[in-house]
């Protein structure tokens, strides 16, 4: 299952494990990514907390975690190749993995069809 936030983060969910990244729309709007600051593994956050920062040639953007929980991993590949966020935002360009503390928070997020509709209203 994949869900999206209005801030353009996606979360792919398997049981209580989630993988989070930014959407294709987000990477396209940001442009070339030049810096990503990821959270510490083991840190806990509530939903909508700022967990990461992504900077493009144009601007810095905060990343808000779509659900609360504990960070279990971060994408170490990004340290070597930030262009993954632009070239593969939904796969190789993921940001972090999170152990979701309250699965019901997922209900507040959009499914793919709803997100695509939402994005259409933005352009």
């Amino acid at each position, binding site marked *: 299952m994949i869900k999206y936030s209005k801030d353009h983060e996606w979360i792919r969910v398997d049981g209580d494990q989630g993988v989070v990244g930014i959407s294709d729309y987000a990477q396209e709007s940001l*442009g*070339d990514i*030049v*810096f990503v*600051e990821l959270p510490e593994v083991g840190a806990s956050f509530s939903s909508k907390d700022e967990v990461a*920062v992504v*900077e493009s*040639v*144009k601007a*810095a953007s905060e990343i808000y975690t779509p659900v609360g929980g504990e960070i279990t991993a971060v994408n170490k590949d990004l340290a070597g190749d930030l262009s993954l966020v632009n070239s593969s935002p939904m796969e190789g360009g993921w940001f972090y993995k999170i152990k979701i503390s309250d699965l019901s928070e997922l209900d507040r997020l959009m499914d793919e069809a709803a997100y695509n509709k939402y994005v259409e209203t933005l352009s």
Partner: protein
Amino acid sequence: METPENLKKTPLFNLHAELGGKMVPFAGYNMPVQYPMGVMKEHLHTRAAAGLFDVSHMGQAFLRARGDQDIGKLFERLVPGNIAGLKPGQLRYTLLLNNTGGIMDDLMVTRHEDKDNTLFLVVNAACKEQDFAHIRDKFKDEADLEIFNGRGLIALQGPEAETVLSRLWNGSANLKFMQARGVDILGYECFISRSGYTGEDGFEISVPGEGAEDLVRALLAFDEVKAIGLGARDSLRLEAGLCLYGHDLDEGTSPVEADLVWTIAKARRKTGDFPGAGRILKELEEGAARKRVGIKPLGRALAREGTEISDQEGSKIGVITSGGFGPSFGGPVAMGYVASAHSATGTRVGLLVRGKMLEGEVYALPFVKQDYKR
């Protein structure tokens, strides 16, 4: 407020749309910030081959003396540079100064080779109305200002620029850095200078508005040339250590503070016959309280305009005025003003980014070696 409806368009507006340019408001114009290639690739392409920029939003004008007085000598009333000594066909970077020695604008001044007692001026888009009003006010009946609204100005920059331009004009190899010439290209009366704003070799071509699109299409037809937006123009000039007016320079800032002492002609330091000479000569003698320097953030995070600079104890010593990512430098780059006591190359500084103090150091500009054909 700037809305897409009341923004001005350059003669290349339709072409930008056709090329997929992402348009943004800039100095009252609707300008391409990037094309589909993206800022990073556009930047690197310019340093590797040739980039083509629409800079038609900038102000272009002739200033012609009415009487026998030399126009260069007259213009020295407004700027600290040696303009009287400009040879025909030579251009120079100089500064319009106010009476307190602050910088009203930075500009390029060419002594026209063919037109008698005439300077060609290129000023910043955001300042042009104010600059031209100032110039008219200062010269009244001594000189005539002919403003070229609607004329195109394009920059062709990069190591392949000379080769590419030679296919349209066989004189490109003979024009040296900071020289300019009137040339007929594709039947249009152009005015070409070997100059630019990227740190690369290159040319700026003033072209009649009706010929701008033809000329740009002819240049873009060559494989080496890609259209480049304002985003890459900014990162290119920042790596080259060049100032952006309104950010790195403003009306409160003197040429000494801005580390543009080289623009103050030696002879004129003796005569002191330029606006704000009192302050500027004093600063030349005693040093200014603050100075523009390059700042290299030591980590990967960017230090953008407005970032506070502190000493190692955490006391504020200055502010970043331009900052971003340097694609050719391969990391973050910035420039800003610091208290002169902290301006030596290699001085460690703190950069307050998103509430955290990051490490940076004062770095000798430019970040990327300039490659001019002198």
